[in-house]
């Protein structure tokens, strides 16, 4: 049995390769009686025996009707999956130990509804979806992040027991869809600040502060509070007042400053401090053996830093 399973798996995998977009065709949909269907067959046999014993054509007819019902539901089970299109959408990155989520767009290309779809990834509870004719539905699949780096969305098993639960129709959907998993933040006493970078002096931060630095040309979309209204009233045109914060120290989170015997722990520590600085709006830079990220603030900067940590030592792979 297990050999058959393996053979089937290999055969099925060949039929549905990993792709950017999966459209369910007759080649990639499988149907088989479910456990309930097997029980239903037993029921049909029982009714047939009853009808034969009583020589009652109406009872025999019922058993034939139920058999036909099962036959017809094969077609409907198949039709329930046919023509569904799966396209990857956004992902939510996560740290190790959290849940990463993958959004998937499901579109029906036929003029009928698709009911009771169950999407399974690994051993998680199935996600239910019902897709209406010609409409697009978004489904979010959650996966627990176990390892740092790219988490590829595993093959999805799409199942449906519609219409009566006697027939299971299923398909494998292998989407090119991945989420970034950051190292799990682990606190340590001191931020691993880089040595040799502790130049004394005052730095002008890249972020806005309250030290007036001069005027800049107006850019559409700038906050109204920043516009130099007095100058504008004098007819000098639109200008922006440029305020910068002054920072006494520039923080460099540095790989070298850590005892790097345990790479993963070091990355976790760095990850903790990246989040700490970013949360507190403190400007910081990150220096890793191969990558240097110049000082900065904000979510994009944080993402850059975390990405660098997540992919540390990982060979670039293409999806």
């Amino acid at each position, binding site marked *: 049995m297990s050999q058959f399973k393996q053979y089937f798996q290999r055969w099925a995998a060949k039929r549905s390769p990993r792709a950017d977009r999966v459209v369910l065709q007759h080649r990639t949909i499988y149907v088989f009686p479910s456990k309930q269907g097997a029980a239903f067959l037993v029921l049909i046999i029982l009714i047939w025996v009853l009808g034969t*014993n009583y020589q009652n*054509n109406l009872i025999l007819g019922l058993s034939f009707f139920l058999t036909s019902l099962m036959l017809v539901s094969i*077609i409907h089970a198949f039709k329930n999956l046919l023509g569904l299109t799966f396209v990857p959408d956004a992902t939510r990155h996560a740290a190790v130990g959290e849940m990463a989520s993958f959004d998937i767009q499901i579109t029906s290309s036929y003029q009928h509804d698709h009911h009771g779809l169950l999407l399974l990834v690994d051993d998680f509870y199935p996600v239910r979806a019902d897709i209406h004719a010609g409409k697009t539905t978004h489904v979010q699949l959650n996966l627990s992040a176990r390892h740092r780096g790219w988490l590829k969305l595993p093959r999805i098993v799409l199942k449906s027991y519609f219409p009566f639960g006697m027939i299971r129709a299923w398909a494998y959907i292998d989407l090119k869809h991945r989420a970034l998993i950051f190292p799990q933040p682990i606190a340590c006493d001191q931020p691993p600040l880089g040595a040799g970078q502790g130049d004394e002096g005052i730095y002008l931060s890249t972020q806005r502060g309250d030290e007036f630095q001069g005027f800049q040309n107006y850019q559409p979309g700038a906050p109204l509070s920043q516009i130099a209204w007095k100058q504008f009233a004098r007819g000098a045109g639109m200008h922006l007042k440029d305020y910068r914060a002054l920072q006494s120290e520039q923080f460099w989170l540095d790989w070298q400053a850590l005892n790097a015997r345990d790479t993963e722990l070091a990355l976790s520590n760095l990850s903790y401090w990246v989040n700490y600085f970013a949360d507190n709006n403190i400007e910081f830079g990150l220096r890793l053996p191969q990558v240097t990220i110049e000082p900065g603030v904000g979510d994009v900067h944080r993402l850059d830093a975390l990405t660098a940590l997540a992919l540390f030592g990982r060979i670039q792979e293409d999806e």
Partner: protein
Amino acid sequence: MIFNKRPVQEQSLSRESLAWLFAVQIFIIAPHFATVPAWIALVWGAVAFWRWKIFQGAWNYPTKLKKTLLVFVCCIGLALSMGTSFRFESMVSLLVISFSLKLLELKNKKDFILLIFIAFFILAAQFIEFNYFAAALYGFVCLLLLCAALMQLYKKPGRHSIWQYIYPSMVILLQAIPFMIILFVVIPRIGSFWAVPSPIHAKTGMSNSMSPGDFTELMESDELAFRVSFLNAVPAREKLYWRSLVFSFFDGRMWSQSREQKTENYFNQASKNLLSHVQYKGDRVEYDVIAEASMKPWLYALAAPETWPQNIAFARDMRLQAFGPVVERMNYHVVSSLDYQLNELNAAELKQNLQLPKNGNPQTRARAKEWLAETGSTDKLIEKLFNYYHQSFFYTLKPPPLGVDVVDDFLWNSRQGFCEHFSSSFVYFMRAANIPARVVVGYQGGDINSVNTSITVRQRDAHAWAEVWIEGRGWVTYDPTAAVAPERVKKGIEQSLSATDRELLAKPFGSSVTLLLRIREQWDAINLKWTLWVMNYDPSSQASLLERFLGNVSPMRVAIFVVVSGGGLSVLLFALLMLRSRKQDLPQTTLVYFQLCKKLKAAGFIPFPNETPRAFANRVIASKPELAVTLGHLIDLYERWTYGEDNQAEVQLRSGIRHFKV
């Protein structure tokens, strides 16, 4: 991975599921109350209420002790109301009770499915009892509800109207019908595996004896006795004397079969002997009888039967009988010769048909001898007696009670009665005059259905008449009732009665309104067809039907037929389903534009998803400047049609695209 076990989600039931289950149970159980004791309804009601309270969170699931107690109480109740013997009724009752009690164990979807499966089985069991066309229709409704209840589990939870389950279930059920018909026609029928208990009913029907008043009960019953479908025209009503039993023995009050008539020999050797002495003179009628279960062996046929099926016996007294009690509906084909003559009466029979009790009814005995002497011949005597009936008797279903000498009291005193009194007194009178005679009971006439050539005979058509042995003519039928009330045989019993008597008579539904009568006739015709074609479809009819379609019937041919027809139907169904789904409601303008795109695709140009027709055309013209004029014109037309609603442009565009070449 497909065979891997996944963590099973404990899926609790929705309010909707529970409501569906209650509805399904009501529909499934209801017909069984013809068989099971009524208190089971109370059990179901109580259990359903309990389950509802559990759903609301007010009550708890019963403990093991309570469950055991409940089962115990139900079993006791069952034993009290049906006895401990294992019968069909107790089997069904047990099934229905367990179906009801299972509600208290209903926790998740698995239990729900189990209950629905039990419901399928109980639905099948109801056809043992009811198998007319109406039962099939009701069964379809039940099936529809069961399917909808199952479907409800596999659709997105939430409040839906019930039609959202019923309509798609209906569609699937209807699609399954052709497959079912193929299976029904082709799947071989085999005999019972083991003996099964049948439903036993206290049926009204002809009993094996006749004493005054016995027939009253029959006349009050509207129950179906049998149906007859004639191959050709229906004979005149007054010729339709359906023989069931012949009584040759009279004990002074009650007519019954003689000892001889009850022996096996009467069906074997003796009946064979008789057949060689029957002269079939003509007036042949060919008909199918569908006899309802009567729990009695006697059947119904017109005299004299010429051919009958193997599974039926012919009795020497010119009637047909089954080998055992008719416990379920039975169908048989008979050819009868209405005009016949019997040339043999052995000595024992002669004696038997002259038998009278030693004493009693002195007046009749005296008068019989007196009248015979007066008239001189059998014919004349009968004529005189008939005249007497005709002049001074009154036909009524409510005769006054008779004294000890039943015949004397009736003939010379009360002179009121119906068929049983007339036939009884007539035969007595004949025997007293030393003329062999016997009483025949059965049914007379029936409701003639004008839609098809068929007759429906009910218990109220029960009748008794007489036969007199006349040398050289054999047994001759005389109906003394007809002498008093000729309408009885010509128009049916209802027409022959006075208004007050008619009240006594069972009335089939709608017999007073012409339109309803018409509908009933149609309905009867459908039921007859149903019985003949569907319920009586057996190995022999299967063989002949298959032979008609497939020629030589071999298992190989049947298998090929099943595969080809089943496969063909599936493909057809699938194609139809997809075709209907595929049809997208795109505007005409877009469809026409797609035609243009198709032509350009052949040249390697494919529009981008967001590209307007104009932009696409410009891109094509950029690389193929020779198309500038034609393509530009087409796009102009397209825009004029689409945005300017210029219908002239449509015509030009369509023809333009047709002639367009890259």
